[in-house]
């Protein structure tokens, strides 16, 4: 069993005006493991991710990183901790090339001048470390890349910075079979390299293919966080659609009284 969580969320609340989207959400991310975050459309997965990455500020709850309680107020704060996010709506600039996108906002400079050779070299090495071995040119505009290649660039951008936790929001949603397999392989490799990986996906096959743990969100509440080997497809689907499955998940009545019974966190 992995030792202590690298990133731990407890009691996260988040509202947009009168609408409360996240209720008392807890989540643990372990180094070297892929934690799948599942849930129906609108369950609050992307919102939770944006809370972790500092795009949204949380209303209540604590975030612990590497044993220390932290406050994340901006994307900068998150990346300084080593938390990188690959967003569902890809955050790439189509009018920039691969290298420019990978270093966006954190360009290497010598004096005031951009240090293009160093950036190109580092970008190439990172892509190679992810076993991306063929692109036409590192200076290709990302607009001209295929969906899978774009996703790869987004992931490479996230691991370029010695990041420790990488969150991927539906990285395979728009991809074909072959490219999905490639990206999943990449996700697995990140965890094998010792990173804490959070993978959001609607595809149960993908989830079971790569993840060690599964966390299910149901209507903004964390229904359960379990080891992937302890549950079946059907149980996870029940957690997603109904919030509980047998003795797992939210209690049948009064979900607001729900405390913390997520097995993965407690044991």
């Amino acid at each position, binding site marked *: 069993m992995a030792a202590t969580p690298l990133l731990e969320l407890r009691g996260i609340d988040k509202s947009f005006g009168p609408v409360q989207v996240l209720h008392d959400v807890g989540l643990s991310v372990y180094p070297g493991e892929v934690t799948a975050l599942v849930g129906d459309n609108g369950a609050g997965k992307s919102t939770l991710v944006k809370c972790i990455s500092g795009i949204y500020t949380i209303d209540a709850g604590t975030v612990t990183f590497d044993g220390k309680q932290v406050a994340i107020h901006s994307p900068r704060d998150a990346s300084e901790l080593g938390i990188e996010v690959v967003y569902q709506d890809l955050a790439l600039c189509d009018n*920039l090339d691969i290298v420019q996108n990978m270093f966006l906002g954190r360009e290497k400079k010598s004096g005031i001048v951009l240090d293009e050779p160093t950036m190109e*070299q580092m970008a190439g090495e990172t892509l190679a470390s992810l076993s991306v071995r063929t692109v036409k040119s590192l200076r290709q505009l990302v607009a*001209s890349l295929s969906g899978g290649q774009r996703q790869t660039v987004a992931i490479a951008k996230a691991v370029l910075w010695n990041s420790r936790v990488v969150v991927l929001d539906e990285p395979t949603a728009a991809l074909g079979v072959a490219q999905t397999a490639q990206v999943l392989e990449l996700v697995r490799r990140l965890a094998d390299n010792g990173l804490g990986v959070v993978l959001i996906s609607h595809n149960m096959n993908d989830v079971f293919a790569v993840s060690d743990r599964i966390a299910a969100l149901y209507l903004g509440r964390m229904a359960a966080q379990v080891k992937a080997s302890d549950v079946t497809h059907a149980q996870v689907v029940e957690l997603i659609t109904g919030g509980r499955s047998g003795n797992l998940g939210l209690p049948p009545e009064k979900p607001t009284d729900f405390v913390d019974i997520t097995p993965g966190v407690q044991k």
Partner: protein
Amino acid sequence: MSTTTLETAGGVKVVKPTVASHIRDYIGRIRGGDLGALPAVLGLVILVLIFGSARSDTFFSAGNFANLFNQAAGVTMIAMGLIFVLLLGEIDLSAGFAAGVCGAVMAILLTEKGYSEPVALAAALGSGVVIGLLLGFLVSKVGIPSFVVTLAAFLAFQGVLLNILGEGKNISIPDGFIKSLNKDSLSVTWSWVLAIAAVVIFALVQFMRYRGRAKRNLVNEPIGIILLRVGGLAALILISTAILTQERAINPVIASLKGVPIAAPVIGGFLVLWTFVLSRTSYGRHVYAVGGNAEASRRAGIPVDRIRISVFVIGSFMAAVGGVMLVSRAGSVDPNTGGSSTLLYAVGAAVIGGTSLFGGKGKIIHAVIGGAVIAVIDNGMFLMDFSSGTRYMFTGVILLIAAGVDALARRRAAATGNR
């Protein structure tokens, strides 16, 4: 089409570029809708040929060639600033009258207030910065669309100009540095010194970049392409200098007139400065990024609001520079300085040159090429005795064609997945 691959940083395999593959790529990009400055350059060549054959004696004279620089200088400066604004997908309709206001500030300080030239110049440029801060604040922090903010400013600045000059008044500026900026020429010696220095520095920069990349084992452009580029620029600059250093006075005995117009190195200097800023600094990179995808930029930690304000500041600053050039050329300022067609010519220059109205795509050189197209049309049609009404109509059509090319190229790019 066989392609060889080679390994670059970290062992990533990439296609080995050759002169042929470079040309193939370029054609591919054009077909994919990434036209850049190509239509403008072709248009410029065609226009020059038409006017040249119709009025070979006057249009092709050295005097007229020199005149084109002075004619284009003001609009080109304003267009350079507009390119920053357009890169974010914004617009500045007030740039023309901002130029007029800044020029008037300078003229009044020079004459009525009796300040020295450096003070008056600094005040004009400073006014530009203040105007830009105001526009940028309203667009970025208050959230009013730039079209509305700058349309209001367009009206307001026209009023400011009328008021500070007094109705219909015309202020002439005294002889001096400012007046010579867009009127006089460099000495023949200085013309050649600057021309040769420009070529040598350009060649050195290109060569050093090539060597730096080769040392790191990164993919380089084929040396043939670099030689072609250096050779092309050298030919352009040296031939132009040779023409401009010819005697062009009607009666050289009374007053000799030769040398490169001072306006040319002024345009060239700003071209180099802003091209450097846009392509070699992280600030420039962030301008492109915000123009391409503002949300992605925000997530990357780029201060989007500050970038938005800054482009308006640069826009209005360059409008002020344009104002100085306009006043210098006319030798005076009046309530119509920077008015009538100035702004539309500047927007036209940027768009004709190849800068997109949709943001994210554009280069400073587009202002120079587009400015040249507009100056050539104006100048050539004047020499062919077309009325100014016809000239406006023709320029309008050209602008429409350029904007149409931009929009079509965009659709084409979206269709080929080349956004």
